[in-house]
Structures are given as C-alpha cells and as structure tokens.
C-alpha cells in the first residue's frame, strides 16, 4: 500500500505537472507532490520499523534494511530540493533563462526522475532495476540540457552517450545473471531475476558466468556512479544542468547507482568466493579518490569543483563496500547518507551564490558572508563538513573507513590520506575566498530558501555525534546483508 502511494504520487505528480507545469503555482504543486512522496516514505519506514522487512506486489517489490533508509533519504532530499528549487527556478525564469515550456518540462521530469529512482530502489527485480536506471538517465538528460546552451547540450550529449553505453553493459551483465540463474531457479521467467530468489540460491550460481556478469555490471552501473575512469560525464552534467538537478544527481542518483552495484556484488560474491569482485571495487574506489583529489586543483567552476568532490566520495564509498565486513559496510552506508545530505546542501548554497554573483566561476564569487551570511555560512560549513571535519557526520564515516582500511588494507591507507589532504587543500583554498572577503554584489528579488541547507547540515551534525538506534540497526542489518570478509 505504502509502496503504491510512494511510487504513485510522484508519477501522478509528473502527469499533473506535465499539464500544468508552467502555472504560477506549479512549484508549490511540485513541493506538495514531493511532500506526499516523503509522507508515503515515512509511512513505509514506520511500517518497516514496526514489522521489519517485507516483500510486496507478488514479490516484485522488496523493502529491507538496505533500501528502506535510502528510500526515505531519497524522498527527503527530493522534498528539500523541490523546496529549494521553488525560488531558485523563479529567479532563473526572471532572468529569462527559462521559458514556460521548459519549466513544465523541468517540473514533470523532476517527478519522473524521483519515480524512477524510487522504483530502482524498491524493486526486487534486477531487470526492473535496470529499466529504472535507464529511465532515470533519460529523464535527467533532458533536465541537464534544460538551458539549451551549447555547453549544456554538450554535457547532455556526453551524459547520454556515456551512460547509455554503460547501461547497455549493465543490461548484458543482467542477462548473464539471468542465464546463470535460470539454470538453478528454473526458466519460468519472472522469478529468475528476483533478487531475493537469487540471493537464496547464490551459492549454486555458476562462478565464471557471475564474475563475467559482475564485470559488465560494475562497468555499467559504475559509469553511473562516476567511478574513474568512467566518470567523465559527471562533472559536465553537474556543472551545466540547473542546480537543483546537480543536487539530486549528486545526492541521489549516484547513491542509487551504488546501491545497484552493491546488490549485484552481494550475489556475485556469494557465488564466486574469490576476492576478485571486492578487489575490483577497491581498485575503482581508490583510483577515483586519488584522481578526483588532483582534478580538484584545476577547477575554476564551482559546481564542477563539487562534482569532482562527489566523485571522490563515491570512490570512498565504493572502496569501503569493496573492503566489506560489518564495520566498513556500516561506514559506507553512513557515508552514503551524510554525503548525499551534505552535498545537496552545498549545491543549494552554491546555487544561490552563483545566482547572486551571476556566474559559476569561482573568481567571480566573493565575500558571500558580507552580502548574505546564511548562504556564506551554509557554503562554508557545508564544505567543511564534506571535507570531513568533525563534528560533522562525514568525519564519523571517514574515521571508520580509515581505521578499517588500516586494519584490512594497510597499503591503501596512505593513498587515501594523501588524497584527503590534497582534496582538503584544493577545496578549502577555493571556498574560503568565496565565502570571506569583500564584494559589491547586491541582493536578489526572491529571498533564497535556505531552510533546506541548514536542515541538512543539522542532520549531518547530528549523525556525527549521535546515530539514532533504529538507523544504526538498519545499517548493521544491511551491513550483515552485504557481508564481505
């Protein structure tokens, strides 16, 4: 029931908004729909807290500790982002960067995107998972190119082609999975792709096929996660799309992609019984962290800067999942949560900052605290949080990941630390002059909606000092589910 509501409300909203997306009250409608979705998510969560994991809709939908908090998170960030985008898109429209039609497209696609992600999270069918991922790509492509500027078109095209190709690999991987599965579960179609069934029989699945499948899946979904060297679409897409979209891309889409990878990893590791899959993930993770850290130094565009930081953090998460084991998985899940909260908060602040300065170039953004303290402090605190300074939650997860790495992969620790140090210098060195210093910019007509920023940061702060028991419980269960050495 809740699931129906959960998936239904954004879908309905999409339809409505595709009709009325250009009206004056469209943004409010958008917020309302997202709120409804969030409500449904909360109901679902409540139910899971009450009755534990469940299978729904003839086993087509699965809600377990691993995805329940991601669902809530997705719905929540979706809501805050819609709140943020209300004044933001108004201002954009006032600046004449968007026509009415584009607004309609934006609002409807926004909801479609939410739907696809929720489907991808809740479905139990790997095939559906794949379909949803592809759909997510397609819906966001149009959002990335919303401004129709040459740059945005280029970004969109790269996004489309690279992710399309990636997704195609993923499909082949899924197919191989199916091939291996139907020999065990029997060919009666549907069930052979149901994750729960596969998970039940993963021990008997054919290792060679599964390892091949995993390669395709990893490369496929990994492209979407933005793992180096498959990441090239990510900075462009983040930088050129409208900021709310950058926020959800970084905050949600990447999470969902990681989620897909991990779901597959569970199956593969169950059958392959070799360290290969986890080693691949660690390799990708480490490479992404290090490369991203150095990419950060060259950035002149603030949204690109934080896009690369997303790559870095996805690398950290992938690395952690690669290491596996209760602590590392726990840390990785926590990191997914805090990263998406922090990063979207940062993008909110960045969006307003860029609007104020009328430019995304770092050297044009100066002295934010003097013109608007809330934005300035939001950006400053957000960046410090994302850089892993306590008492914010990112530090908590990085602390766990680093200590586990020292234990399980001592060789990797220096690399990670080096990358973290370099990233710190790069990001902080660029953010500080933007936040502090002098400026001549004047205020904007619509007051920025910065409530989301501080709500997010408050949550992150809380997670740094206190993790609610049931959340911790989910993390633990999920960590056990994901397993590893």
């Amino acid at each position, binding site marked *: 029931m809740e699931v129906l509501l959960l998936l239904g409300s954004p879908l309905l909203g999409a339809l409505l908004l595709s009709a009325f997306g250009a009206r004056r009250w469209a943004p409010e409608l958008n917020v309302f729909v997202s709120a409804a979705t969030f409500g449904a998510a909360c109901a679902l969560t409540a139910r899971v807290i009450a009755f534990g994991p469940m299978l729904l809709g003839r086993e087509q939908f699965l809600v377990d500790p691993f995805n329940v908090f991601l669902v809530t998170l997705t719905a929540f960030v979706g809501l805050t982002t819609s709140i943020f985008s209300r004044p933001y898109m108004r201002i954009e429209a006032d600046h004449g960067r968007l026509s009415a039609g584009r607004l309609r497209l934006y609002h409807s696609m926004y909801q479609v995107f939410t739907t696809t992600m929720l489907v991808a999270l809740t479905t139990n069918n790997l095939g559906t998972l794949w379909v949803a991922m592809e759909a997510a790509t397609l819906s966001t492509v149009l959002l990335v190119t919303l401004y129709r500027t040459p740059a945005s078109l280029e970004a969109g*095209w*790269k996004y489309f*082609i*690279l992710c399309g*190709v*990636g997704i195609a*690999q993923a499909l082949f991987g899924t197919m191989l999975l199916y091939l291996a599965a139907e020999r065990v579960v029997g060919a009666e179609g549907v069930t052979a792709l149901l994750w729960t069934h596969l998970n039940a029989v993963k021990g008997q699945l054919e290792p060679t096929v599964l*390892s*091949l499948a*995993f*390669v*395709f899946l*990893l*490369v496929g979904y990994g*492209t979407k996660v933005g793992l180096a*060297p*498959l990441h*090239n*679409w990510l900075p462009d897409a983040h930088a050129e799309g409208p900021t709310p979209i950058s926020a959800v891309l970084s905050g949600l889409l990447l999470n969902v992609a990681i989620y897909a990878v991990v779901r597959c990893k569970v199956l593969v590791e169950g059958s392959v019984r070799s360290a290969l899959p986890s080693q*691949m993930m660690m390799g990708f993770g480490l490479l992404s962290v290090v*490369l991203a850290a*150095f*990419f*950060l*130094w*060259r950035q002149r565009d603030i949204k690109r800067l934080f896009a690369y930081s997303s790559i870095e953090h996805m690398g950290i998460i992938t690395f952690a999942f690669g290491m596996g084991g209760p602590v590392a998985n726990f840390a990785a899940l926590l990191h997914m949560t805090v990263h998406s909260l922090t990063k979207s908060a940062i993008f909110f602040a960045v969006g307003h900052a860029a609007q104020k300065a009328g430019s995304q170039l770092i050297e044009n953004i100066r002295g934010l*605290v*003097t013109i608007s303290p809330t934005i300035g402090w939001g950006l400053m605190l957000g960046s*410090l949080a994302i*850089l892993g*300074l*306590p*008492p914010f939650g990112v*530090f*908590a997860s990085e*602390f*766990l990941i*680093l*200590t586990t790495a*020292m234990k399980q992969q001592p060789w990797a*620790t220096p690399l990670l630390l080096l990358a*973290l*140090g*370099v990233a*710190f*210098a*790069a990001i*902080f*060195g660029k953010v*500080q*002059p933007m936040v*502090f*210093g*002098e400026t001549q910019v004047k205020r904007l007509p619509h007051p920025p909606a910065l409530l989301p920023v501080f709500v997010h940061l408050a949550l992150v702060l809380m997670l*740094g*000092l*206190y993790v609610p*028991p049931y959340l*911790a419980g989910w993390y*633990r269960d999920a960590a056990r589910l994901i397993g590893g050495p």
Partner: protein
Amino acid sequence: MSFSYLNACLTVLLAWGAIGLAGMIRPKSVEFAGRTLFPLGALCGIALAVLAVMSIATPVERAVLPIGLPGLPFHVRRDALASVFLALLGGASAGISIFSTGYFRKGEGALPGLLCLEYHAFLGSMGLVLLADDAYAFMVAWETMALSSYFLVTTQHRIPEIRAAGFLYLLIAHVGAIAILLSFGVMQGGSWQFTFDAMRAAHLTPGWATVAFGLALFGFGAKAGLVPLHVWLPEAHPAAPSPVSALMSGVMLKTAVYGVLRVSFDLLSELQWWWGLVALGFGLVSAFYGVIFAAVQTDMKRLLAWSSIENIGIIFTGVGLTIVFHGVGMGALAALALIATLYHCLNHAFMKSVLFLGTGSVLHATGERNLGRLGGLIHRMPWVAWLTLVGVLAIAGLPPLNGFVSEWLLLQAFLFAGDVPHTFVNMLLPVGAAVIALCTALAGYVMVKFFGVIFLGQPREAALSQARDAGWMERIGLAWLALACVGLGLFPLQVIDTLDVVSRELLKLPPGRWGADWWLLAPAAARHASYGPLALFIVTLAVVVLAALGVRLVYRRRVRRGPAWDCGFVRIDARMQDTAEGFGQPIRHVFEPFFQMERELPTPFDAAPRYRVTVGDRLWTMLYLPLGVTVRWVADLVSRLQQGRISTYLLYSFVTLIALLALVL
C-alpha cells in the same frame, strides 16, 4: 547524580557551550556579548581552575557520554595530567575572558555574538581534548578546536593576508590531525578498540611503537609549531584578535604538549629512551630558530609568535629529557625534567597571555602593530606598560619571576644528564644545556627590544600622543595574569608539590622531595642545589628600598627636568632612536646564514635615502614552496586525462571493460 570532579568539569565545559550559543540570541549586540557573556565565561574559567586544582590529587575518574558513534560512545577520563592542563586552561582563559569583555568593542569584523560563540566553542573543545578518553572523542574535540580557532583567526576576513594565514593554519592543523589519527590507528595494536584503555592494554612491537610515536610527534608538533612545522604560527597569531592570539599561544599550543605527554607516557606502554633524543633535537632547534627570528621581527605580534615557537622548543626539550631519563630508568631526574616541562607550560601560558593582551591594548590604543611606529607609550598607558613589564621580565627568565623557575629546573635536569649510561648521549646533552642557556639569553635580548621599542623612548609617530590607557576590565585581566606570573615565581615549591602528583602517576614514581623549607626549593635530584625566590626577592627589595631611602635621607638635592643630554646633541628627534630593524641588527649580523634577507640600501647620493630590510624564513622556500609546486604539477598531469573528446571517454570505458574481462578470464 553524585558529585565527581569529572562531572563538574564537564558541566563547566557545557556551560561554556551554552554561553557561546547564548551569544547567538542577540548576535549584533556588543553590550550583551561583551559585558554579559564574556564575564560569565571568565567565571566558568575560574571555576574550572579551582575544580582542577582541587581534583589533581584525587583518584582517576571515568565516564561514558551518551553521544558518539554507535560502537564507540564518547569516553571521558580525568587524571592528574588532565587536571594540570585544565587548571592551566581555566586560569589563563579567565584572565583573557575578563580582558576580552573590554576588548571586543565594536565587533572585530565579525558579529559579536558569533565571536562569542566561536570563542567559547574554542574553550570548550580545548577542555574536551584534555578529558577525552577515546580516539573518536579526542579527534572530534581536536578538530573542533582547530575549526573554531580558525574562524577566530579569520575574524577580520576582509584582509587577504589574514585569509591566507587562516588557510595555512587550518591546512597544517588538518594534516597534523590526519597524522594523529594514523598514530591512534597504529596504537590500538590489533584490538580495533579505539578507547584509550585499549591502547594502554595493547602491546606494540618496538618498531610499531616507534611509528606511533613518530606520527604523534608529527601531528602534535604541527599544532605546537615545532620547527619545521611552525610556518603557520607567525602568520596566524598576528592575524587573530589579541585575546585569541593569547588563547592560541598560551593554551592551545599546550594541548599539543599534553597530547605528546599523554601518548608517550600513558598510551604507549613501553617507550624507547632514544625517542627522547628526537624530541630533544626538534625542541632545541625550534627554541634556537624561534628566538633568533623573534629578534629580527618588526611586527610586535609576529615577534611574540616566534617567541612562542622558542618556548615550545624549550618545552619539547623538557619532554625529550623526560623520555630519555625515564627510558634509561633514572626516575628522580625524569621527574625533575617532567616537572620542569609542566612548569614551563604553566609559565608560558600566563606570561605569553600577558604579552599578547598587552599588544592588544596597544593595538587598540594606536592602531599600530609595526614596532617602527610605536614608542614612549609608558607615559600614555602606564598600566599596560607596567603590567606588560612583568610579563617581559618573566619571559626573559629573570629571577624572581616564574620564567626563571622552569629554566632553573630544566638546567638542573641537564646538569646531571652526564650520568646517562650512553657516553655519546651524555656528551650531547650538556651541549643542549648550552643551547638552552643561549636561547634564554637571546630571549632577554628579544624582550628588551620588545618592551623598549614599544613603551620606552620617544613616540615615533605624532598620533601616538592621543593613545589612551586600557579600560578597567582590560587592566583587571592583565593584572590577573601578571599576578599569576609573580605567584608562580615566588612560590615554586607549593606549585611543584602539586605537579609532583603527575610525575607519580605518569612515571610510576614514589613522591619526590622537592623542598628543604616552605620557602626553599631544593629538589632531591639536584644535589644540594637550592633556590628560594622569596628570600632573594625580599633581600633585593630591602637593599633597593634602603638604598633609596638612604640616598634621600642623606642628600636633599633637587631633581630638575631638562632636555636630554645625549653628548650635547642639540636637536634630538624620535628618528634618532633605534628602529626595530636597527635593534635586531646584531642578531642579523651574527646569525646571518639562518636568514633569507633582502636589503634595500641607499646610495650615498640619494636625495631621499631609503633603507629597507626584510627577513624571510628559508624553510618556507626550501620545504613548502616545492611541495606546492609538486602537487600542482601532478594535478596538471592528471587533468590531461580529461580532454573533452567523447571518443576518448568511450575509449576509456572500452579499455576498462576489456581489461577487466581479461582479468576475470
């Protein structure tokens, strides 16, 4: 909840936090933040100091707080070592807070409420650092400390130099923190419990223990400003508002010392004696490097910052000695060295605070930080001048003030280092004593320059005649700290008997005998040597008074005021006095190879002759610039990967795919 000193201390820290948050109620009001909240903060400071002093001798207390990570809640623990540093924190911060009430007048750049928040968060986090008993709590407190102090440093963020200083500070602090984290990771030694108890229990191989110690020394050294990690210090201290500089230099640096002591004597179960030599070496280098650079500075706060580096050097020398003695099992001497170290920590906290606050008042009164434009202020602001003089004499290590006591103890410790059972080492150590002696003498030089140029002579700028003395609150704050200097100087025995608890606890020693009589300091370790500042002071004072009276009584001659004589020079103006550069000239001359100097000399025929000399830090150009260049270079290399051609990107994916498939097959 039954009373325990630990809970009380935590309550005080909490109160600080609350005061800070209260500042955000009316962020714009100087009255509220300055006149209401800061005095409250000062009261908390005094309370903390009292609690800490009372609790030193009491048994260890522990607690677990309901916050933290699911697996790892905040553990806190109070022992004698922590108490000593808490007392330091409370005592020094009390004076500084009182001073601040008068100091933060028109909101130094940032909102007063915000300042209040950052300031008290800074205090609170420092307290938590001292109490933390697991790696996570420690790191959280440690980084919060760094963060809040960073925001305080960049209070006047409109000035680019200050932003740069803040950046450098936070960067080095962060790198240091990473090293500390690593060292904790090594220290837990396979138990994967990150409570300090687990680390105490863990048994490391000598190799790993050494690694842990090295990392800790690096990390804490970065915070303490140990050469060559000192570069942030001379930048950050001048940038910050004076009370903040006082806190950072007086208290924050000591938390790093606390960290080193905690790690090497408490967490690492068995330590190697030769680690001491490393610490000693870095200490001596820092002391010497710091003092000669202090001597050639022209900015008064920069000068004090360098002098802080010197004192940190002396402190680390003490730490090194302690480790050596402890390692080779010379208990009494180890205790002596440890006491000397702790004593110097206390001293430096108070005297350096006095000096920084003094510069703060001068800064407010004149708006000048450059020594070249000050002078003669003793006439305009006598209170500040005389109170600062106490600090100056103390830090110059002159009896009967406190600076001398720790120097005396340290030298005593050095004197008997000859008995260390390693011939080469006991050849080496006395040379260390020589360096310390040289440094203290140079410190005298530096301080004469500091005080003489700022407060004595003729004002070098006309504007200085408008300078007005500090307000009452500031005077009280200064007086509090100056008084502490005198007290620590005159009653060393009482202080040391309290500190002795620490040496008992850390070094597992029987209580040592430190005095012959209540006024006479006579450590058992230093054979027959004794020092009674009170008596010395009284005698000297008596002689002075008698002499003065005698002279007055016998000869009733007038005192006439007249123009200065100066060998009959007719027109004397302020420009004839030594400038700061001039006063530093001999040092520049003697220690030339250490400095990176740029001189601008006038030719004999210059119409408007101009002389300028700037002294740079060689380490900066030798160590830090190349590092930055390397990173940039790598970044450029990496960024070549992303050429914008979609075919290239597809190729990446293709190759990755093929490679992985090949890997699997």
